């Protein structure tokens, strides 16, 4: 028994990412639910007249989560199956790799999300389609941000290898408290508000709540989210190219998955 304990203890002791991983999840969960609890205790009547805001935001957040994870999974699948090198000796430009991942991730995301959207109506009497035409822009904006996060994580996987895998799973949870998915930005402490305003998520979810509560579309919020998305997407693409170039210098493309 002690031997088995030691086997895992040595593993944890020698790996900083594993220790960080153990601390990371509870911390993020507490921060996220802390802000949600604070919001409900202060503004308990906020959602009284609008059934389904939380569920709608949850579906949108899940769409973001699935799109990012789908992108990362396509990469991780190649590493896990030890096929990574085969992929990079195939005559594919980096741009072609990115484009094929973007479209494959979209299909993966929709396969998971469409049934979830369909069952919300009979089960809870809520339809996300109530958001109307702006729903398309909200989905598009979330998808671009999901793909951008996928590009950031995949760049890390190319550069640092499978040890970067944990980041792939945890990147979105880190942004969840700052993304103001279930509560307005005012609920965050001032310093966090400054950080949050640098994320498109705040504008997307704020607009979702605005449409559902006030029946009014503020395209300024949607546009703001697109501007931020454009900046992050360009950084993500640059980072992907940069990581590939670095990996070619450092040799990390050779032994990936071994």
């Amino acid at each position, binding site marked *: 028994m002690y031997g088995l304990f030691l086997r895992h203890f040595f593993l944890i002791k020698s790996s900083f990412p594993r220790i960080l991983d153990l601390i990371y999840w509870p911390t993020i969960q507490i921060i996220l639910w802390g802000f949600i609890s604070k919001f409900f205790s202060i503004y308990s009547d906020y959602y009284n007249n609008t059934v389904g805001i939380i569920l709608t935001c949850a579906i949108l957040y899940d769409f973001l989560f699935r799109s990012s994870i789908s992108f990362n999974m396509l990469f991780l699948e*190649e590493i896990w199956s030890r*096929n990574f*090198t085969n992929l*990079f000796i195939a005559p594919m430009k980096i741009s072609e790799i990115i484009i094929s991942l973007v479209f494959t991730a979209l299909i993966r995301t929709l396969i998971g999300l469409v049934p979830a959207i369909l069952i919300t109506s009979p089960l809870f009497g809520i339809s996300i389609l109530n958001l109307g035409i702006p729903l398309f822009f909200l989905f598009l904006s979330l998808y671009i941000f999901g793909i951008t996060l996928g590009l950031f994580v995949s760049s890390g996987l190319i550069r640092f290898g499978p040890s970067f895998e944990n980041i792939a799973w945890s990147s979105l949870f880190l942004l969840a408290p700052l993304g103001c998915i279930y509560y307005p930005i005012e609920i965050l402490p001032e310093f966090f508000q400054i950080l949050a305003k640098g994320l498109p998520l705040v504008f997307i979810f704020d607009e979702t709540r605005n449409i559902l509560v006030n029946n009014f579309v503020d395209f300024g919020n949607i546009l703001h989210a697109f501007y931020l998305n454009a900046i992050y997407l360009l950084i993500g693409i640059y980072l992907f190219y940069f990581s590939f170039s670095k990996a070619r210098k*450092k040799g990390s*493309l050779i032994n990936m998955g071994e």
Partner: protein
Amino acid sequence: MIEVINLSKSYQNNEAVKSINFNIGENEIIGLLGPNGCGKTTTIAMILGLLKPTKGKILINKKNIEYHRIELLHKMNFISPYIELPKKLTVKQNLIVYAKLYNVKKIDQRIDYLSSTLRLNKILNNLTGELSSGQKNRVSLAKSLINNPSVLLLDEPTASLDPETGNFIRSFLEDYIKQKKISILLASHNMEEVKRLCTSVMMMKNGKIIDRGAPRELIKKHGRKNLEEVFLKLARTKDEL
């Protein structure tokens, strides 16, 4: 045709490959021998464009891999026991995927040819992950030939195979090079395989090519009975030749 000119690769303070030069002509199989960590894989990775050389250049059919990587990769391929194909796809699905990636025309015809010559017909619809190591090896070889490459890099292509399968692969390669215009670099620890297949052999140690020549010439030159003894002599020699 492959031309490697003054090729070097350094990682921080470690010089993995030190200014090596060699050519591989059409219809030639050149062996690359050397102990583990001598720089064989690094050399192959640079030829494939997976690794950027610190110095020197690699010309494939007279074009520099650094500047024509994608164009040249269309006519190159690689097999290594350390790289696998997706296990959850069938053999045929894997071959179709790679045929598409290499923009192969007439995919069905190419798969039919490779399946019959590499004895894959009966396992085409099996999951790749459920194959024996010999079968996996033949599938990997089929993948490496899917684009009818003019440059093929083989890293221990028969490692951990039973003698019958190993012999089949070697016979296949012997026949293949007679039929196709192809340059092959073979890194192997199997001396008999190298002696049988290669027109010339390069011995690598500590990142340098320390000797080269036809297998029989090397045996004669070093006064040994076989290539394995030559390998051991060179590997144990402190001062490079």
